């Protein structure tokens, strides 16, 4: 190699190393960058995951026998309680966002009267404390009676989380349940799943 060529090669090596120092970040809107909302940023739950998890469950609910029951009951009162986080990710706020989505779906379907939990801050606080501590499922019926709901929609999210050399996979399972407050009976239950990974 000529001396000039050697220097050029060495300069390239230094340049490559410097290449690790990238340009600064900039703020963008979702619609400005094609596919921005499609890209997974972490193994947490993003809007697309939540929509997928919810849509599958709500679709199953639309064809479940409990819907026929509601149709025969003249707009029974339903409350949506927070979903329990039993995962390996701190996705509580993402799950809270689902409450309004479930309420919207139920209201628009027109089979039930939805009691908004936003009007019950004290109860919501008590429910969160229960979720944080030793959760007692029989409490759900008590809460339902407290707010005058005949049915409760709630759920929980679990994960199966595994790691290997250079890879991590998190499989989320969301269970949505409809419970009758009076009896505590589960009238509907459905599971949906999404997988997130770093590979």
């Amino acid at each position, binding site marked *: 190699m000529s*001396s*000039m060529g*050697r*220097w*050029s090669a*060495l*300069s390239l*090596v*230094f*340049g*490559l*190393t*410097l*290449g*690790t120092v990238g340009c*600064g*970040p900039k703020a963008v809107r979702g619609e400005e960058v094609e596919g921005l909302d499609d890209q997974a940023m*972490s193994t947490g739950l993003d809007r697309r995951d939540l929509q997928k998890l919810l849509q599958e469950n709500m679709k199953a609910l639309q064809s479940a026998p409990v819907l026929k029951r509601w149709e025969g009951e003249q707009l029974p009162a339903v409350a949506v309680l927070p979903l*329990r*986080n*039993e*995962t*390996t*990710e*701190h996705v*509580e706020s993402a799950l809270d966002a689902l409450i309004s989505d479930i309420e919207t779906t139920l209201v628009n379907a027109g089979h039930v009267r939805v009691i908004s939990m936003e009007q019950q801050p004290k109860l919501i606080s008590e429910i969160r404390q229960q*979720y*944080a*501590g*030793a*959760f*007692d499922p029989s409490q759900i019926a008590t809460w339902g009676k407290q707010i005058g709901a005949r049915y409760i929609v709630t759920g929980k999210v679990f*994960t199966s*989380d*595994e*790691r*290997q*050399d*250079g*890879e*991590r996979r998190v499989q989320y399972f969301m269970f949505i349940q409809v419970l009758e407050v009076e009896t505590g009976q589960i009238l509907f239950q459905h599971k949906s799943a999404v997988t997130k990974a*770093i590979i």
Partner: protein
Amino acid sequence: MPGVRRLPLGSHWAGVAVLTLAIGACAGHEGRTKEVRSALDAGNPRAALKLLNEELDVTSEKQLPENTGGDNAILLLDRAMVLQQLQIYKLSSRDLEVSDKQIEMLDFSRNTADDIGKYLFSDDVGPYKAPPYEKLMINTMNMVNYLVQGDLQGARVEARRLAVMQKYLKDNDPDNALTAPGSYLAGFAFEKSGQYDEALRYYDEALAYGQYQSLSEPVRRLSARSGYSTARLRKLIGVPDGQAMPAAPPAASPQAEPAELLVIVSFGRVPAKIARRIPIGLALTYASGALSPGDQNRAAYLGAQGLVTWVNFPELGRPRGTYDTPWFRLDGKQLRLEGIVAVDREAARAWDDSKGTVVASAITRMIARVAVGEGVRQAAGEGLAGALLSLGTQATLTATDTPDTRSWSTLPARMAFARVMLPPGTRTVQLGARGARTEKKVTLKPGGFAVVNLTVLE
């Protein structure tokens, strides 16, 4: 003058030198955090927090830096521990969670440019790869944050994250699957959540590390309510194989149900990594077994020629506060704290395991530098200018070789726990270590629990 005539060629090298210095301009991690550690040693965590905010280029601990990756992830770990010492648990949790994700991404990252940089310049050009004990302590220290806030859901998330990492390490690096404090706290979180089988499983893991007497009473209590049993759990509570577990005592009235107090004292600091220069002969001894015979011969040759006498590499400093004895008083009465883990020993062990490879890497870089210098000399000619350019290049490359001193240096050196079952009511808890103390009034509800923490990083 030859130098003037060769200006067009020299201009390449001027560019190279500028580029090289641009990389080398960053001080090593030790340099970046030295004042932080000094502030902690002086018992001034507020000053340490301010310094860390400056280093992260933010004006308040409420802010996250623009870039949470790279070496900022380690600074966030440091800030999380200072925030824990200042009992700002929510922000400490946030910093630990952000770092946890970033450390994981760094762990998975592979980059050719980084490898070239590490080969020519310095180990700390590449992404930080946290040793196993640091990864496990992220979730452990965050469990402390959540438990102090009474947030069992958050603690359980951290416990599950810890379990994923523990499983990975058990499968790949069983000698470094430090489980004691994390498993102990995970057991506590699941016990208080009413998930007794899970709790016993975690307690069993903690007992694999040490015979913690503070677990005897909880294991006895839970074993009466759960079918989960192992030889270790039975041994701890003195129930031989084949013999039935003790029956649960008659339940107290709901209003009189005893509550539990857990106290956690984290004190001292793990040894920080510091930059050292060691003679080539000693470096070759450290690196024996980790260096190829070819590189070993080349290094020995260069040493014998007097071309290389010193090698830059990181060394472990001294831990802080390991001889201290923390104390715990409940309503004025002195009670015993049980030592749970010596994190400083885990740090020393992890360093001993990797030392040979790190020194070997430093020697390889040194050989590469001499080779680059020789290339410059040949290209520039045999005259004085060539020799000077060669020496200048080597000197520049040597200056940029900052030993990789990155580590989570604000981890406590030691952790000690105590557990007490108490009738419901208000209690005064006093904790002390390293000359610092805290006093808390806690109200224990029937069947409830409280966690009081003292973190002192002096």
